[in-house]
């Protein structure tokens, strides 16, 4: 049995090698005829071969952002709902993953004032005041290091069952975070003291915790 699967994988490998070789020969031919750079061909084929990158490219703007926008709950309303009971808030606005130990994932939006910004850490953050009392009541993640997989888990777009294993599924979580970070204001745009509008996702595990939001957009209000 094991031998059989070994043979199959060896065959697969051969096929892949042959394919690569064909591609290589073809691109060499193309290069000699048209003067195209070989490097480009290789880049394009390796990008297409990564299903995770492709999933992110085809779904992030087209599906994930619209889905979050459609279902997003205003942060102030969400915090009130959580105060009244996390499970109840989750059942009406959220998605639960991770079983009993896991939290509720919420799509969230809001406008807030940035009261503090920490860019020194690689896991950069902005503390925001959402109710106008001058105190921070939630945090926006700015990356490049991001905690959690809220963007992956908040909609029903990405089903674990359709991925080969946890490694692939984790790579998707990280790739979505990276994509989102690339769309957020960089360190060149200081946010402290500014009013911002944001859209994102957050996982809440206990009613008392300060929401650590992973945004897909942060717009500085004029």
């Amino acid at each position, binding site marked *: 049995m094991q031998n059989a699967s070994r043979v199959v994988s060896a065959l697969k490998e051969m096929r892949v090698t042959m394919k690569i070789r064909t591609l290589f020969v073809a691109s060499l031919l193309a290069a000699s005829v048209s003067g195209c750079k070989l490097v480009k061909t290789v880049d394009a084929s390796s990008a297409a071969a990564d299903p995770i990158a492709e999933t992110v490219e085809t779904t992030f703007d087209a599906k994930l952002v619209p889905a979050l926008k459609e279902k997003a709950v205003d942060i102030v309303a969400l915090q009130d709902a959580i105060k009244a009971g996390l499970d109840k808030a989750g059942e009406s606005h959220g998605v639960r993953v991770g079983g009993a130990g896991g939290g509720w994932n919420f799509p969230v939006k809001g406008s807030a004032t940035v009261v503090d910004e920490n860019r020194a850490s690689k896991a950069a953050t902005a503390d925001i005041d959402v109710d106008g009392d001058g105190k921070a009541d939630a945090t926006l993640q700015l990356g490049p290091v991001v905690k959690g997989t809220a963007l992956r888990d908040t909609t029903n777009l990405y089903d674990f*069952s359709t991925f080969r*294993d946890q*490694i692939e599924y984790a790579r998707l979580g990280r790739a979505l975070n990276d994509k989102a970070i690339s769309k957020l204001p960089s360190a060149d745009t200081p946010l402290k003291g500014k009013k911002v509008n944001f859209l994102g996702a957050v996982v809440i595990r206990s009613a008392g915790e300060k929401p650590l939001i992973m945004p897909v957009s942060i717009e500085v209000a004029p």
Partner: protein
Amino acid sequence: MKLTKRLLMSVVALGIAGAVSGTAFAADTIAIITPSHDNPFFKAEADGAAAKAKELGYATMVLVHDDDANKQNELFDNAIAAGVKAIILDNAGADASVAAVKKAKDKGIPSFLIDREITTTGVAVSQIVSNNYQGAQLGAEEFVKLMGEKGNYAELVGKESDTNAGIRSQGYHDVIDQYSDLKSVAKQTANWSQTEAYTVMESILQAHPDIKGVISGNDTMAMGAYAALEAAGRKDVIVVGFDGSNDVRDSIKKGGIKATVLQPAYQQAQNAVVQADKFIKTGKTGLEEKQLMDCILINAANASKLETFALKP
């Protein structure tokens, strides 16, 4: 040898029970197949599953495959021959186990996987696994903090055929690699084994006496590594594990190992039996095949609440 005997006896016992009492009294049986109970994690799984099965009125057939895919295959043959209604499985290899699970499925016996995944979907009814990536990130964040964000460290990796070994290592590195002052000087497998980890740790210490920390893919390897460090008079080295075993809990309470990550193994096994029961009765579980359960960081602050892979309230 001991196992084969035990297994034979239970099969014989089943046969007798069936013959004597007839269908009216013969309870349906659920097979529970895991790696060796030498590792308390797998024992907790088997105990959790067996307790829930009993509670729901099933007889159980508890077997161990010792991480040997061939042996697992034989156990499946035995379980199929015994006419079990469902199989709860912590498998012996992500690729190698697919055929066994499929064989049972073809005979109309559904499998419910816990702890470890297989690389194919649509063969098992459920695959309930810990969110190892999330857990590994928790462990790594704590490790980074304990290390003061700098210093040389070693990593002990689990068995290569197990997806969990790779995913935990990836979770560790996705966090640790962001800190350029933390340097990996050794990354070696100890195959989830305590004794192997002891030997590996001894040789790492010889080659790299300047290490400040060890991050381990599971608790048994963390225990082995800590024993080697203790024997070498290097209790200053920070050790972080993964699983949430009572052994590591006790070590944390004594200031030995510094942290671990709890996988809800007991609950996970119970969930699998509940889903199996529902599937036996209704033909479906109503849930996705692949399900993740979140892990919880354990350190000196909450170690006292940990008991047999569950947190007391």
